[in-house]
């Protein structure tokens, strides 16, 4: 009795996450949409805006955008 109970408990512990259904490769239609990008629909616009912000604030970093310069152009 105790043995079966222990087995059930250990399976629940180690396989608990496996019950969550994984997203199959052919089910990534929504993830493939341009709006699902980290930087949004227009990453180049975001990068440009961040560049100006960093220049005005005399600070850089924290948002994952690479690059530098004076931003005066």
């Amino acid at each position: 009795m105790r043995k079966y109970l222990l087995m059930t408990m250990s399976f629940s512990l180690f396989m608990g996450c496996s019950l969550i259904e994984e997203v199959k490769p052919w089910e990534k239609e929504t993830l493939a949409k341009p709006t699902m990008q980290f930087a949004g629909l227009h990453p180049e616009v975001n990068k440009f805006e961040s560049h100006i912000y960093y220049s005005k604030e005399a600070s850089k970093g924290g948002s994952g955008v690479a690059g530098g310069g004076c931003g005066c152009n």
Partner: protein
Amino acid sequence: MLKRIVYSFIFSTVAVLALESGDSIPKEIQEKLNLETDKVYVIDFFASWCKSCKKELPLVANIYNDNIVQVVGINVDKNKEDGEKFVKELSLPFPIFYDKEKHLIKTFDPLGFPAIYYVKNGKVLHVIFGAVKDIDKTITEDIKSIK
């Protein structure tokens, strides 16, 4: 009673196995795809949202047009109209099946996408997952080795 609960719990967590090389395709699917005996088929799963598919499909169409191999395309778009528009845009010459209900792809259960299966006499001979550069050359060489 407790024993039965434990076993049913264990078996409920076992995943359904995907089709691999050497596996047989169910008869109903062979009939649905009109697969003839003694012919090698390339079964290509694709979708309109898949960027690699857009690159690969014109190359696959070329080898079909050159009569190198029989090709069967299976579109897995949620919206059939998206799939039809994509097929029309690429002018795909081979037979296309629309698997909106995901019945076909769930049977094959590929580990990557796009997925290509070489099939002969209802058996999977070889599988290619994911994007492949120069897929036409790869398929041509594989077909030569199979024949």
